[in-house]
């Protein structure tokens, strides 16, 4: 591994409120190689804002500052909108939470995937068609010709999410940001979708940032984990070492999850006053 794929140093995201600017990400730093990084935290911890600021998707009046925010040597904060459009999708792409709201309801699945591809590459019609079908097969859709002609409301949630993944991966980006890719899905389908992401990411040697509130899930699919609370990283550890986590917040989150052979009469609850902030 040569230089890191993504370098983030002292990232801050703030929004104005009636009582002055509020920082939702407060000085986050990390570097990412061609590996799988998990960002875990609860609602309001700033994990999604971190993902969005990497793609420069935070609109005014939100404000992003950083000492360093570099993707493959490109300074993201210096790019204008036109330059960003060449990066978004083509080199860094993002899978959103809910396929119901993220797919265009009036375009067929095939057209949407094609759009993701032809925006960034000039290709012949036949080749586009072939790439779409290949990609649908890659996300384990059995009957790609039929599915490509369907509209989003005609497919299930799990299939919708696989279509999203197909759309995000078809331009062959180097970094995939998956923001809660499975929280709108059933448990049985969740594993399938994550296996697909995992398989494609490993096979193509991409970087992955998996953003989720589910500690167990992130530890299963990532190499490294950042635990965020109130805009800061409170703990960083290797995925396998999660059970040895030190920070009281991480420990609290782990303890609050019921387990399959639950014997506790009451679940321990986080004492939020302990970590000032949200």
């Amino acid at each position, binding site marked *: 591994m040569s230089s890191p794929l993504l370098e983030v140093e002292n990232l801050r995201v703030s929004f104005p409120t009636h009582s002055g600017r509020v920082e939702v990400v407060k000085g986050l730093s990390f570097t990412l190689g061609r590996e799988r990084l998990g960002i875990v935290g*609860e*609602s309001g911890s700033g994990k999604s804002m971190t993902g969005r600021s990497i793609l420069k998707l935070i609109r005014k009046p939100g404000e992003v500052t950083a000492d360093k925010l570099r993707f493959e040597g490109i300074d993201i904060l210096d790019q204008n909108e036109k330059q960003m459009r060449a990066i978004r999708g083509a080199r860094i792409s993002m899978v959103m939470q809910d396929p119901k709201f993220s797919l265009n309801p009036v375009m067929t699945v095939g057209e949407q995937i094609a759009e993701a591809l032809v925006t960034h590459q000039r290709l012949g019609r036949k080749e586009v068609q072939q790439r779409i079908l290949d990609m649908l097969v890659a996300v384990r859709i059995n009957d790609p010709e039929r599915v490509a002609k369907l509209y989003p409301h005609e497919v*299930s*949630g799990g299939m919708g999410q696989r279509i999203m993944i197909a759309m995000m991966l078809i331009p062959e980006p180097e970094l995939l940001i998956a923001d809660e890719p499975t929280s709108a899905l*059933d*448990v*049985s*389908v*969740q*594993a399938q979708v994550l296996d697909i992401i995992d398989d494609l990411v490993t096979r193509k040697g991409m970087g992955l940032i998996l953003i989720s*509130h*589910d*500690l167990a899930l992130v530890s*299963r699919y990532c190499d490294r984990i950042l635990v965020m609370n109130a805009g800061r990283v409170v703990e960083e550890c290797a995925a396998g070492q999660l059970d040895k986590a030190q920070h009281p917040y991480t420990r*609290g*989150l782990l303890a*609050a*999850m*019921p*387990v*399959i*052979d*639950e014997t*506790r*009469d*009451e*679940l*321990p*609850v*986080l004492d939020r006053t302990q970590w000032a902030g949200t």
Partner: protein
Amino acid sequence: MSALTLKNLDISYGDTKVVHGVNLDVPEGESFALVGESGSGKSTILRAIAGLAPEWTGEISVLGKPRTHGVDRNVSRTVQMVFQDPYGSLHPRKTIDSALSEPLAIHGIGNRGERVEAVLKQVGLDQRFRFRFPHQLSGGQRQRVAIARALMLEPKVLLLDEPTSALDVSVQAEILNLLKRLRREQNLTFLMVTHNLPVVSFLCDRLAVMRHGKIVEIADVAQLKQGDLKEPYSRELLAATAA
């Protein structure tokens, strides 16, 4: 006595039959879970019991009394439902106080102020929330309000439709503890829909595994804890969780 009895229950939406011949008996005071994937008909059963899916045949009995197909005031007094999404289940332009008072007004129950105060206390919400609007509350606080609303008529049975799946794990823990305490204090019967097996393990006594609108297996929670489910599909669900 049985709190809920379902006999040969078929439920349809229009021409599509979604629940096929379900038989179930939940004794008073039990906490019973319905698990299964989306579209398996588990929420539809709750909706039929609550009167929100009126196209059913067979028999639904609540505390020994058969339920009619229409709006049934007696059923509302004994059975109340808590919905999945606390962001969508509270009226955005009604204060917490008016949302909680509405069931009392409908059923002509007096003493509303005191009852609202008491129920807020039961669900662990400070009185200062009483005259706020839902958007001023967090997800966990809203779910507490939704539970409070279900408790207003002092029901015997609560129908819980994925009550914690929209919440963070730490907030989920708070709500699960709350439900457990309320059940103990008020001797409630729970019929809960979820696809989270660890939650079943924490809160329930028995569970039914559903698939394609049918119950494939009814098991004790002890069996679940030991991984001792019989049907292949139940084992598959268990494996997806435990992996």
